[in-house]
């Protein structure tokens, strides 16, 4: 019996058996096209189709949304998503494509949406048939999210939306957007409201999605422009003027500090996830030559690899320790570090990969001689997406200093 199974409830125990046997029999074939490092970088329809088929199959088997109510398309179970995730992450399954839907939109709609809205949008979200994106950031509202200017003007039971969102991952595939908009210009935090917007249906009719090109040369995120888009008031979450509170639910789940467990697949055993970082770098070091010397013999490379190992395993052990009440002091102390640590470990790993490879370190993905298919310069550059998006590392440190250590608020 595995360690994680040791404390299962009877429901969890039976469900775990179901997950295992289903996964064993239904693991999808390898992708016919090369997959990006995460769902946020899905670029082609082929990639999306492959991943959506997997999400739909897992959903149909009851492994996605297990803890949501049945009338919202969920499995109606108690604390079983964690079990499904453990089993899926143990397998060689790919990740889910509807990452923003599952991780951010679903819990937000669940806690703040009307019952009708939940029944309307959650089933196709959980199954992956409808992809979701997030309309928070704007050119003038990055770290200072509450300064968003996209305006929703009320006209009876309709809202008319105008504005400009940026860094909108997956918008080019998305049916829905979670939207933070201003409904009152006289108040910063209390002047915001929160909507779900059917953007795909409105393409060309008030919604324009344009790809932004990343420094890596990849697309993957977009700008979304609203021009007099009308939506129904039924698509509002919570009260008018409560948008900031609703957004906090979204952000808590994004930072891994939310209440609902996000359905997750793929990861640690696939070699692409964090667990693979150090072993991939070790492999790289054995094959790489720097200045005429094998990188595996370079003392500074050796020390940095050991440092990365300690950081990466420490990060993973934090997640384990966070569940042991006697070994944590503050309920949020470990979980609020998640995003910061993950992004900075990824950045150091990418940088170290380039350094290990020496002259070959800057051979890029399209060069057949690039070590490990050019993974490391790509990872290094993409890591800045992680340290900037969803609250920069600077903002994360403010949050930790203020909420966990109780230091005076900076802004």
């Amino acid at each position, binding site marked *: 019996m595995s*360690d*994680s199974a*040791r*404390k299962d409830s009877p429901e969890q125990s039976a469900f775990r058996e179901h997950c295992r046997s289903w996964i064993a029999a239904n693991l999808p074939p390898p992708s016919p096209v090369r997959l990006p490092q995460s769902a946020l970088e899905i670029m082609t329809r082929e990639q999306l189709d492959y991943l959506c088929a997997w999400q739909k199959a897992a959903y149909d088997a009851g492994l996605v949304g297990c803890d949501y109510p049945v009338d919202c398309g969920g499995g109606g179970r108690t604390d079983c998503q964690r079990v499904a995730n453990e089993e899926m992450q143990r397998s060689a399954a790919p990740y889910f494509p509807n990452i923003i839907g599952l991780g951010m939109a679903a819990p937000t709609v669940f806690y703040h949406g009307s019952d009708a809205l939940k029944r309307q949008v959650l089933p196709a979200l959980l199954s992956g048939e409808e992809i979701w994106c997030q309309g928070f950031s704007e050119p003038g509202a990055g770290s200072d999210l509450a300064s968003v200017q996209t305006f929703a003007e009320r006209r009876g039971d309709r809202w008319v939306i105008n504005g400009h969102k940026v860094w909108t991952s997956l918008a080019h595939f998305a049916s829905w957007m979670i939207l933070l908009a201003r409904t009152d210009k006289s108040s910063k935090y209390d002047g915001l409201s929160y909507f779900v917007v059917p953007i795909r249906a409105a393409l060309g009719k008030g919604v324009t999605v344009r790809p932004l090109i990343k420094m890596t040369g990849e697309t993957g995120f977009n700008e979304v422009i609203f021009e007099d888009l009308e939506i129904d008031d039924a698509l509002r979450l919570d009260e008018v003027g409560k948008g900031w509170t609703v957004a906090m639910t979204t952000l808590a789940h994004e930072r891994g500090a939310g209440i609902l467990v996000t359905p997750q697949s793929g990861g640690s055993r696939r070699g692409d996830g964090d667990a693979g970082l*150090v072993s991939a770098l*070790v492999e790289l*070091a*054995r094959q790489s030559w720097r200045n005429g010397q094998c990188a*595996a*013999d370079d*003392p500074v490379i*050796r*020390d940095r*690899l*050991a*440092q990365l*190992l*300690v*950081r990466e*395993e*420490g*990060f993973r*052990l*934090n997640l*384990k*320790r966070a*569940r*042991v009440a*006697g*070994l944590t002091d503050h309920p949020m*102390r*470990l979980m609020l*570090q998640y995003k*910061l*640590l993950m992004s900075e470990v990824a950045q150091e790993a990418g940088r170290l990969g380039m350094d290990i490879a020496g002259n070959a370190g800057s051979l890029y993905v399209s060069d057949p001689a690039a070590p490990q298919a050019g993974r490391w310069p790509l990872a290094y550059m993409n890591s800045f997406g992680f340290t900037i998006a969803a609250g920069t590392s*600077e903002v994360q*440190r*403010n949050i*930790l*200093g*203020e909420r*966990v*250590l*109780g*230091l*005076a*608020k*900076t802004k």
Partner: protein
Amino acid sequence: MSIPSNFGFGEEEQTLRDAARKFLAEQLPTDRLHRLVAGHQAGSPRWDPALWEQMAALGWTGVGVPERCGGVGMPFVAAVALAEEAGRAALPSPLIGTLQSSALLAACGNAEADAVLTQIASGKAVAPGITGPRGGWRGQDCALEVQGGCLSGTAHWVQDAAKADVFLLKARGSAGTGLYAVQADAPGLSLQPDAIVDLSRDQARLSLASVPAVELAAPGTADSVIAAAEPALFTLVSADLCGAAEWLLQTTVEYARVRQQFDRQIGFFQAVKHPLVDVMIAIDSARSHLYNAASAVDHDPAVSLRAAHMAKSAAAEAARFGASRAVQFHGGIGFTWECYVQVYFKRQLHNEALYGDAAWHRARLAEMLLGPVGA
């Protein structure tokens, strides 16, 4: 075998840990600690033997000693929890060394070792003296010789030597190094105290002239005994570092919430706030490694050395960073003798180097990852 999801830290361990924390907070509040170790009375012992007797009576010395030797027989993770509390209190005592000695004795696994374990369970303090003049604890780095059951030569870097009742010493015989128990009051044994920076412990060089000794591990077997105990030796020092680092963090955070400059609490400034967050992050990683390493000793010895290397390197870095920021952010007052921070600061300077500093442990991890250089 595998490490349980709660690191084996169950209700009993938590009860012991909480009781220890409360006991030390009451018996050795920081102002009393400062008077004790920094009070500058000439010839003062700088520790409290009466407190040590209370701790022994509470069963702390024998926490990991098997019940057959009169001990409590708790898992190693309990000993580590005690060591973490000792670090949090900057406790001047032979506790860490005695817990380390228990690990060494358990690795000997014979009746002679059990006899010393029985002494520990009854409250005796035992100090290991296995580190050679060149700072190594394996191989030939050893300045003691054994002949006819007696030891002669010098033992270096013995921690809390003046507090110990018994020493576990490595000595070289014709067939290699062995491990021996020597009574602290044995004739022919004398202590030369080192003048160290740390105020919360003592350290000494022992001179031995034909001192009768009990053989715990025969010549040629000391290395394998020590190797078996290494994960425990490293992890106990890591626990001391982690507890201290958390004290330094909390004390400095408290000061940053109170101290005003420019009409603001200094914790408002990101130049203070963000480094303190980074200290917290370093400590949390170190603590996660700590419990993992402790639990590995109990449940998965095959991975325990790797886990202990990670724990010591993470703990040493966290404590180093935390101690330096504690002095810096306390400003002028942090730089004075009267400030409590200095006691913790100095103890970490010492702990960091003990049984290998962070870089040394990382070099061992690199060998595990990549093999030796030139492989």
